[in-house]
């Protein structure tokens, strides 16, 4: 589904983007066709890990069950999750992601440091869909 968007485990977990070798523009989700900088003639796009840590640009949550294609079990009560938009200083970009389970909007402030960690989007009997999640760096659980 999102092949090549992230890699690694634990401390080595990283979001993966691409970078234009001609102009150094960074893209996430990865841009593999051509550089989108209108002032760039275009160069090879190479895979690049993004900064592991960033600061909260903004945040919100989903108090109602999102529609398909988000996958949830309608038999289970809805558990809201937080969503965090994170500013990565080195890449000068903002990346949206779910917060790790258990972190609510009450735990967040704009400007707080967070880090990308591996997480589970959902799982069924046959398969587990993994994803990236943002976790405040003060949280170790």
């Amino acid at each position: 589904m999102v092949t090549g968007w992230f890699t690694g485990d634990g401390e080595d977990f990283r979001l993966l983007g691409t970078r234009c070798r001609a102009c150094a523009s960074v893209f996430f989700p990865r841009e593999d066709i051509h550089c989108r900088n209108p002032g760039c003639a275009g160069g090879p796009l190479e895979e690049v890990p993004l900064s592991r840590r960033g600061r909260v640009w903004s945040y919100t949550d989903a108090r109602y069950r999102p529609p398909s294609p988000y996958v949830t079990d309608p038999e289970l009560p809805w558990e809201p999750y937080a969503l965090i938009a994170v500013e990565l200083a080195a890449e000068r970009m903002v990346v949206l992601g779910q917060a790790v389970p258990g972190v609510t909007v009450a735990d967040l402030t704009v400007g707080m440091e967070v880090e990308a960690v591996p997480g589970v989007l959902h799982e069924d009997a046959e398969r587990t869909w993994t994803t990236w999640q943002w976790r405040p760096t003060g949280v170790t659980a």
Partner: protein
Amino acid sequence: MTGEVAVLGAGMHPWGKWGRGFVEYGVVAARAALADAGLDWRDIGSVVGADTVRGGYPGYVAGATFAKALGWQGARVTSVYAACASGAQAVDTARAQILSGRVDVVLVVGADAAPKGFFRPAGGERPEDPDWLRFRVLGATNPTYFGLYARRRMAVHGDSPEDFAQVKVKNAAMGALNPYARYRKRVTAEEVAASAVVADPLRLLDICATSDGGAAVVLSSMEFAHRHGVAEPVRIRAVSTVTPRYPNTVLDLPDIATDSAVAVEPATETFRTSLTRAAYEEAGVGPEDLSLAEVYDLSTALELQWYEDLGLCGEGEGVKLLREGATAPGGRIPVNTSGGLASFGEAVPAQAIAQVCELTWQLRGVAGDRQVEGARAGITANQGLFGHGSAVIAVR
């Protein structure tokens, strides 16, 4: 001004949840606009339909669908899709046809029968579609983005949920006066605060609903209007449809991330500001000349953002402008006199046309209890998926 076209007619189908097909809403709106213009359908040289993706195949070819429903009469036909800006691009297409001299008079129609609850992408496994991906990977609905903007305003400008609620209170009071609005009831700040949180910090009454509805306008050359006996029609003087500029550093629907500003320094103005600036430049008017504005209040917090993006006040001063009453009836620049999306809800291909209908009625001085006294110029502003947005300026 050589770039002007006349608005000869405006019409709507009342908005709500009527449970009928979008064609019916569009035809009712079209017939109302034709009657308002004093024209027969067979006088129309071109029909431009704003597409709905929810209507299936007929919705994708909305121009022809409405033309067939009104009765094939040999007019030119165009169908336009531009997400939330579809209606404005339909207006722009009609205007271009008139200004190029290809046709004298054009019917523009948009209508939708929206589903209840969150908008969602088309079905199937479509990982190449950013709109599909944001739902599948993040469960990020439209209110997710509204919530992010709202929280950001709170952190950067000190806005509060109570400020946001006052936008709803204002727009509901105006919507209560509009016979075409879906919600025609005043709302109190307490009612906003008591409604359920949808996407923190926004509550149900901070976010616009989905609706059924239709809107239409009849546009013509100035010469045709004069021949038709309309000496001083409402005129459209600008339609801006500019795209963002790289790097777009404001997280927007349906993106999972912004562009990186590593290689290129961002423009000093945001996408929304560039939309309205382009309209001002084309029209030769500025924010100080406006009598009213119709903006996409997809959320209450977003309306405050538009105040700043329209240049009605400085950055971060949206709440101050609201508190002063400048954007309320009787204020310096009333915003969303129609009641806005807060009172109408979203019927995507119709809503940008509905904004132009409201400008038309206000500039003619026939807006009834919600009339802005002596209205001379108005602007609409909207923004949709994938870098679509528009602003229309009309004058009297």
